């Protein structure tokens, strides 16, 4: 009876209760969704780092990471790889050469890490080959061309390999993409002109279109105007194993585009047999062994095992190679907690405020209930139940709304295209797929119930302190 009455009491003032429930719903949704977006972004970043950049576990010479010396290499690599690939938890294993050098074109040069890989084996470990920008090549698909290199989009821009040009094809593409006719007319003035870099193209664009149009269509124009000379040539220079300066002419065999600008502008992949020859490096040696596991959850145990198996080498997992990722993941956990504490505190204050008003408005009725024989324990329980119902109604609807929105956005993603450069500078994708584990939902629901119970104690105590005779005299 008390439960039924408490439920009905909530709907006594429908508008007030709905406002409270709506505010709790919005608060919970905002918190959970923000956590979902953060979690999704971090998970995506971690997945991308593992999938494109570092794999699950790397093995190097103990001094290699600190000085990048070519002499700090792993001997008898094929035997090691054979042993590692025989471990049940391991999905794939490959070795790499690693040289620090310079990439040069006629106009520009920049420092890069040159990584010698076996393209086919790499495909089993990394997904970077899938990030090939359409129309820029075929990864290492042409067996006759040994001098091919797979470079990042930002490096291609830095080396002026990507250029900008307005031509008839670009005009047609922009037209079908919905660019207004007046802007098309303006940018057509540059038809036939070629710009070596993004900066000069943007400068030219700004001279003919307004800042407003640039913010609305600039990105589209920039993307469509990019031109790329197939198999563009550039040179890589570096020091060989005899400490002699050497190098080679390479052709762009493909340009990869990932959310990490730093990686894109610094990592150049070439075939390991070419690099081995250029640096005069012995066969069956490598600088790095990269390992992909079948299940990421085995990372810790496999790291431990490999350390025991190869005590003379350095075995590091992705969390140790990129401690910022691990820290980001841990810090995010703290942030989620902090977020939820703020939201639950707001929920608690909302409930306390509403229930105090309820008690104040119903002084006479509460006095009557005590007069007719409802003891203080039951009055207390009734007010508590009302508060819990109110919290639960808002909390549960907040969780349901969050779950639905997160489910929808987790498949479609949210595009923060306007902030793409900022996101990518930090290594994050601007297209985020929010994600939250079921355990988080369960914990938050439990916390909502606890908050509802705790925040109802004070109003319920207020109701207990009422003197029935005094309360009955209240108008």
């Amino acid at each position, binding site marked *: 009876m008390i439960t039924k009455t408490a439920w009905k009491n909530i709907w*006594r003032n429908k508008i007030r209760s709905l406002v409270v429930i709506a505010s709790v719903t919005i608060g919970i949704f905002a918190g959970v969704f923000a956590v979902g977006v953060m979690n999704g972004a971090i998970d995506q970043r971690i997945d991308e780092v593992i999938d494109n950049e570092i794999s699950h576990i790397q093995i190097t010479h103990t001094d290699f990471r600190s000085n990048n010396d070519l002499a700090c290499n792993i001997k008898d690599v094929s035997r090691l790889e054979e042993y590692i690939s025989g471990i049940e938890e391991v999905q794939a294993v490959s070795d790499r050469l690693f040289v620090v050098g310079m990439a040069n074109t006629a106009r520009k040069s920049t420092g890069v890490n040159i990584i010698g890989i076996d393209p086919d084996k790499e495909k089993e470990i990394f997904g970077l080959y899938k990030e090939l920008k359409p129309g820029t090549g075929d990864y290492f698909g042409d067996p006759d061309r040994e001098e091919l290199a797979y470079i990042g989009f930002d490096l291609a821009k830095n080396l002026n390999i990507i250029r900008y040009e307005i031509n008839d094809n670009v005009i047609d593409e922009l037209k079908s993409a919905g660019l207004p006719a007046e802007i098309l007319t303006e940018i057509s003035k540059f038809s036939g002109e070629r710009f070596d870099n993004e900066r000069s193209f943007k400068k030219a664009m700004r001279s003919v279109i307004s800042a407003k149009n640039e913010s609305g269509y600039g990105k589209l124009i920039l993307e469509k105007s990019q031109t790329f000379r197939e198999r563009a040539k550039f040179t890589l220079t570096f020091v060989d194993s005899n400490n002699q300066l050497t190098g080679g002419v390479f052709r762009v065999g493909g340009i990869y585009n990932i959310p990490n600008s730093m990686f894109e502008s610094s990592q150049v992949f070439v075939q390991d047999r070419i690099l081995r020859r250029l640096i005069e490096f012995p066969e069956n040696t490598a600088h790095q062994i990269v390992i992909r596991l079948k299940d990421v959850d085995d990372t810790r145990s496999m790291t431990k095992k490999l350390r025991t198996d190869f005590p003379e080498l350095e075995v590091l997992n992705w969390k140790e190679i990129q401690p910022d990722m691990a820290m980001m993941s841990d810090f995010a956990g703290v942030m989620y907690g902090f977020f939820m504490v703020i939201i639950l505190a707001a929920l608690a204050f909302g409930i306390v405020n509403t229930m105090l008003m309820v008690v104040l408005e119903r002084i*006479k009725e509460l006095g009557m209930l005590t*007069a*007719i024989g409802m*003891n203080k324990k039951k009055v207390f329980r009734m007010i508590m139940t009302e508060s819990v119902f109110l919290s639960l109604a808002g909390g549960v609807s907040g969780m349901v709304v969050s779950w639905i929105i997160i489910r929808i956005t987790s498949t479609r993603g949210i595009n923060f295209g306007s902030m793409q450069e900022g996101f990518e500078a930090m290594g994050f994708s601007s297209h985020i797929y929010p994600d939250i584990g079921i355990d988080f939902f369960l914990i938050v629901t439990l916390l909502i119930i606890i908050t509802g119970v705790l925040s109802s104690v004070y109003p319920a105590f207020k109701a207990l302190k009422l003197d029935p005779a005094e309360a*009955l005299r209240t108008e």
Partner: protein
Amino acid sequence: MKVLELNNVHKVYNTTHIEVHAVNDVSLNFEEGEFAAIVGPSGSGKTTLLNMIGGLDMPTEGKILVNNTDLSTLKSSAIIDFRMRNIGFVFQSYNLIPVLTAKENIEFIMNLQKWSRKKRDERTMELLKAVGLEDRINSRPAQLSGGQQQRVAVARALASKPRFVLADEPTANLDTKSTETLLDIMEKLNRDENITFIFSTHDARVVKKARRVITLEDGKVVSDKTRR
């Protein structure tokens, strides 16, 4: 049989500067089945006296024995329990629970006493018939007239078969017809169930129906007349 005994009861309220004697040395006895009205001008102490009889307030001095139990010896939780089992209340402004139906309002006290559903249903229907509202069983207070609400309040007061009913100005907000109907119902229930009714009232129509009229002035009993 004596159901209520007031011995030299005083109630003094201490305001900041002065003491107010709301009830001043009142001694009264009530027998089972009485239909009594306490009358007097505003501020004469009628409501204070009823509150003390009902255990909602405690006398500053003197004793109140209900069924030979001295209320001042009971703990507050025991007083609430005692009230629930022995005393029914009817208030001037009905004080029904607005979110509950007529049936649920009447059942409320039986629920507190954990009556079985069957017993509750039987008693509720019996009372709704007695107050002539068996067709308004599922109406909420807002859907009932003032007179009907007060009849539900009377039914609620009688739900747990109390020893006596205390009614504070029960007809103050009612029109003549509703007052007459209510008084007839209460008089009939008083006779049929032998429940003692004690009213505080200004209403001459109630006084006319009462078989005993106690007049208070400045907290003192100035007359106590019983009619046959």
